[in-house]
């Protein structure tokens, strides 16, 4: 910040040779440089790991609290020990752990103990606490404390996502029992009562900046490189890109539409990273809507859409086609789609089904990429004689259109563009398409008994190969229903200064405290 304002002062004094100053800017930024300036896509709202509202919260919580294990950075999904010195699955329902000794809470709350672990996990699993992440601990019975540092997690039933998501994720973060019990309701939002991670919050200026500084009491081994991390909440991606280019940021996610421009233009003192993301984007059809009740009609529509062009329009070549809802690299990823783009067949099938001149409505979130994608779909379908009206919706409306409890919108819903983000376990992809979810999050109103049975069985199956087979079959069932056309898993792209060595999870999520300096 200082270097920048210095430069500005020069400008204001009217004496600046700006080009020269621009060149001096870099080394000074580095020398001062134990400060990292990074963008978060939203401001923090709730740092309590049991109530994180979004990734924007979780990315901060991640540097403040420890879990027994943590997700590895790099390109392969996997975990490594964090607060645990030892951790092992004794049998399908028991996990024994021993904490590292010497881990401390800030604010004089003493050592991090197995009691804290018990408190944290059971808190999320307790229905009365109403944590949205209760399903992460769906089969938790209790945590047994053996002594100050060791204990056993006892499950009622085997739970496959335990290692892939629960323990490494938000629900696996350990909070300070003593500090929490002092709070009204045992909840906090933006002021964390005690931290154990490498950083702590120095200052929060809402909507402007969150400053993290080293936690002096941290003793978890690997230390952080930066003395201070300044997190700027910037919602608009364009604004973030401009902030980066004008050197107000050292690292920021960028939109996929800008990715190509940056690549073409070339960057002088910055680099780009690209990661395949986990989220899944699909084109859905409400199979209970009278216009789309006939599976033949839905299948014809599936065939009429040129997915590659849709993706090209929306992401400018930054995202590749998906083969299902489970991203590559995860158990259960499918090799290929069953349907192919074939407008001629689509036209004939529509004719055979007596659905010529069909008129339908496509609902989507009013963001640039969806607007572009929707217009291509509209053109594709016009090609086979289906007349599509576009209905862009604001996020508030969009996220409730298929919800039965929020009114009658679900009855009029016909076509939609959906996107869910996801954790690195296939169970979190299929969970929203069971019969129980019809009218809750399953807006296509797709319901299959086989699918539901396999979803339940796969949760208990600990052999990855057998699990994988089940998920592949489940995606086949989804696609064969005609209601789904899988579009993409998107991708995460980020841009950063040459001086920075970013630490990212395989899906491109930043792990702030592990950011370092480039060699």
């Amino acid at each position: 910040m200082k270097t920048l304002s210095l430069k500005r002062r020069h400008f204001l004094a009217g004496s600046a040779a700006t080009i020269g100053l621009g060149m001096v800017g870099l080394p000074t930024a580095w020398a001062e440089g134990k400060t990292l300036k990074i963008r978060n896509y939203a401001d923090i709202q709730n740092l309590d790991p049991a109530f994180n509202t979004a990734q924007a919260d979780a990315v901060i919580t991640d540097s403040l609290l420890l879990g027994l294990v943590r997700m590895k950075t790099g390109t392969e999904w996997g975990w490594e020990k964090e607060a645990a010195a030892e951790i092992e699955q004794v049998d399908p329902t028991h996990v024994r752990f021993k904490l590292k000794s010497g881990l401390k809470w800030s604010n004089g709350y003493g050592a991090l103990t197995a009691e804290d672990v018990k408190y944290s996990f059971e808190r999320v699993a307790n229905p009365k606490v109403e944590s949205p992440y209760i399903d992460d601990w769906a089969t938790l019975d209790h945590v047994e404390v053996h002594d100050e540092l060791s204990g056993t997690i006892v499950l009622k039933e085997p739970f496959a996502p335990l290692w892939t998501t629960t323990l490494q994720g938000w629900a696996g973060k350990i909070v300070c029992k003593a500090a929490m019990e002092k709070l009204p309701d045992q909840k906090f939002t933006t002021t964390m009562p005690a931290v154990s991670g490498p950083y702590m919050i120095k200052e929060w200026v809402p909507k402007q900046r969150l400053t993290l500084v080293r936690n002096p009491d941290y003793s978890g081994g690997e230390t952080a490189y930066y003395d201070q991390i300044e997190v700027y909440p910037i919602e608009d991606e364009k604004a973030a890109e401009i902030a980066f280019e004008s050197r107000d940021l050292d690292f920021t996610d960028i939109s996929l539409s800008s990715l190509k421009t940056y690549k073409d233009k070339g960057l002088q003192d910055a680099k780009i990273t690209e990661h395949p993301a986990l989220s899944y984007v699909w084109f859905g059809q409400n199979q209970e809507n009278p216009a789309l009740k006939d599976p033949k009609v839905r299948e014809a529509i599936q065939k009429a859409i040129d997915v590659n062009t849709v993706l090209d329009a929306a992401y400018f070549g930054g995202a590749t086609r998906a083969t299902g809802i489970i991203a590559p690299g995860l158990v259960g990823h499918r090799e290929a789609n069953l349907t192919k783009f074939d407008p001629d067949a689509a036209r004939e099938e529509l004719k055979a089904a007596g659905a010529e001149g069909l008129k339908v409505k496509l609902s989507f979130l009013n963001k640039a990429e969806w607007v572009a994608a929707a217009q291509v779909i509209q053109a594709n379908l016009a090609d086979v004689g289906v007349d599509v009206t576009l209905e862009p919706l604001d996020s508030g409306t969009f996220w409730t259109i298929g919800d039965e409890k929020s009114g009658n919108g679900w009855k009029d819903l016909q076509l939609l563009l959906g996107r869910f983000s996801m954790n690195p376990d296939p169970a979190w992809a299929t969970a929203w398409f069971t019969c129980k979810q019809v009218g809750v999050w399953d807006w296509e109103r797709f319901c299959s008994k086989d699918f539901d049975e396999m979803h339940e069985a796969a949760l208990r199956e600990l052999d990855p190969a057998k699990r994988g087979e089940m998920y592949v079959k489940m995606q086949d069932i989804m696609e064969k229903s005609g209601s789904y056309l899988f579009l993409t898993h998107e991708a995460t792209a980020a841009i950063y200064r040459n001086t920075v060595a970013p630490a990212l999870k395989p899906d491109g999520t930043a792990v702030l405290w592990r950011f370092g300096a480039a060699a």
Partner: protein
Amino acid sequence: MWLYALQRFGMALLVCVLSVTVLFCIAYVIPGDPTAIALGPRATPAMREALRIRMGLGEPIYIQLYHFFSSLLRGDLGVDVWSNRPVIDIVKETLPKTMILAVTGLGWAAALGIPLGCYSAIRRNKLDDRIIGIFSIAMISTPSFLTAIYALLVFAVTLNWLPAIGAGEPGNFGDQVVHLILPAFAIGFAWVGYLSRLVRATMLEVLNETHIRFSRAFGLPEWKITLKYALKIAVLPTITLLGMAYGGLLSSAVFAEIIFNRPGVGQSALAAVNTRNYPVMMGLTLSTIFVFTMCTLIADLLVAALDPKIRKGL
């Protein structure tokens, strides 16, 4: 005069109450369930029901309205649904930033637009008047978000003279001023043109009034007439317009606030609507409506005090 002021003040308060009631009804009828957005896909229906009850969404609208106004009288605007922060704090953080932005934006626009208008009026239909006219109209027709993005690309990215985002370090006055330049430039841009056209038009009218023509007959130089007599009168409608413009900018500053990532009322209110964070939305909108009515009120009273014709009429 005082009675008039008091009457107008009462009226302004009524306006606020009416607008807020309308806003409240709107919030009540628009689709979108705040609990679904807040809790995300992981929420069970039971959890959403619990949150809905906590937010008081289940009750009939008149009860909700009653609660809202009665806590408003106690100075309580409720709490942010997701972070539990008092809404009044959010208003205190955002409103001053937007107000300063609006003052500076209109300030430079007036400082440039009014003299341009005067000059145009004096040089009526000459070449320079025509050129100023065309530039003014070009400025009027440029949406503020375009000015903003071009200003950013030129001054922040290419030249790197000015910071691109944020409102500056809290407490560091110089830094805040530097962060104000581009957004203020962007929102004032169109107003330069608007004000210059308005001042030109009113000036032309005034310059034809009898007493001015008398002065001219006495051989006073044109510039002296313009500055000494005409401007005084021509500035009155400008004050009215500025009052309304200032109030209006509180909501139209939203574009500059989004593009420059300035935490202000517009940006925050928009985000609140999109997440159906009703307490924040109500609090922020109420505060802008209040400031708007007060601005127009002050402008009206100022004009009444300055204009002998109106003053007599009261």
